[in-house]
């Protein structure tokens, strides 16, 4: 966490801010998805509340807070409440070790009669040397939250949906893991920080014996591993049970899958 009071408290605040930032991202991303799919399908999408419908999701969130909290009779009420909270944890932990910017260096300064040493604050909740392995391991914990929610609501649609969702998460982790191997070969590290440092500058590669540098393309890993990137995106959509892979929420068969109740 840190060596003295100042560093520990700054790290606490940083953690909370990064987590709240992730929570703030959700409405924006949902807006992008709803609006984008609406434009693709030649509809309007949410456009009533606020400019371009941007505050629609904020209104939705407020509405959700004022909704009735209801437990079905036969459900395991503790797990029924715990499941949505549990599903937040893997997302927050995985987002926490992604570096958002370069680290900040603070010079030594005098305050309250003490000298506070030079600090280095990374722009992430915590720095983990094996970042990618940590993210993979933590994100597979999300299957537990899904299974809990499906089992606790004591409804056969929920249970079947949760089983499908967990099976899908398990199976697409294979593709996710294999897509990452190419990245590991190129950068030779598990650490996100080193990977990002290696992607600085314009794209340069060896082509027929000379080094080619392009000024108009950044040195991103996606240009070294396009196949891996496509696989990773497909596997990510499947892991989060999004639309092309929405078997767990197949509306015709399972009503709404594990969030029926």
């Amino acid at each position, binding site marked *: 966490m840190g060596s003295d009071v100042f560093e520990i408290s700054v790290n606490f605040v940083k953690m909370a801010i990064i987590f709240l930032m992730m929570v703030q991202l959700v409405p924006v991303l949902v807006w992008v998805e709803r609006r984008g799919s609406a434009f693709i399908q030649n509809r309007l999408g949410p456009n009533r509340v606020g400019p371009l419908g941007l505050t629609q999701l904020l209104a939705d969130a407020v509405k959700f807070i004022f909704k009735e909290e209801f437990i079905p009779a036969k459900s395991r009420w503790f797990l029924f409440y715990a499941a949505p909270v549990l599903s937040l944890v893997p997302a*927050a932990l995985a987002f926490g070790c992604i570096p958002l910017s370069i680290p900040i260096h603070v010079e030594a300064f005098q305050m309250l009669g003490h000298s506070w040493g030079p600090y280095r604050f990374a722009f992430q909740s915590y720095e983990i040397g094996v970042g990618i392995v940590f993210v993979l391991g933590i994100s597979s914990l999300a299957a537990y939250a899904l299974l809990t929610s499906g089992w606790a609501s004591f409804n056969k649609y929920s249970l079947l949906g949760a089983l499908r969702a967990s099976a899908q998460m398990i199976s697409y982790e294979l593709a996710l893991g294999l897509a990452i191997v190419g990245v590991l070969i190129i950068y030779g590290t598990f650490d996100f920080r080193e990977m990002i440092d290696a992607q600085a500058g314009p794209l340069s590669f060896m082509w027929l014996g000379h080094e080619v540098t392009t000024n108009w393309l950044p040195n991103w890993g996606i240009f070294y591993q396009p196949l891996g990137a496509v696989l990773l995106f497909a596997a990510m959509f499947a892991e989060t049970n999004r639309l092309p892979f929405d078997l767990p929420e197949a509306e015709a068969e399972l009503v709404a899958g594990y969030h029926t109740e």
Partner: protein
Amino acid sequence: MSVVVSVLVLTAFVLVFGAGLLTLAGFLGPKPKYSNVKESPYECGLPGQESGSTVISVRFYLTAILFILFDIEIIFMYPWAISFTDFIAKGQGLYALSAMGVFLFIFIYGLIWEIKSKALEWE
């Protein structure tokens, strides 16, 4: 060590945040009026037929275990992938590649064996 503390602190913070939102909803929302129909598990509208804990086939878990095994075998590729460029720098790239080739051969042979022994079939 400090990373473990950070992860635990963040976990606790997230749990408190989520539980806080739930209790806030419980305080602010209208009190639910319970009735027999409302409390029953959601089905197609007729009186409930089946209990929520239906029997799930054991084959489902067997297939899931096979997937987990493959997942673990994929994890074995990671250290190799990390040190592959070092092997190339030492001039031993072919050796490292063939070692991984042998591993992958066993991996795929296991898959073929599973298909041959009808472990992946669903009757």
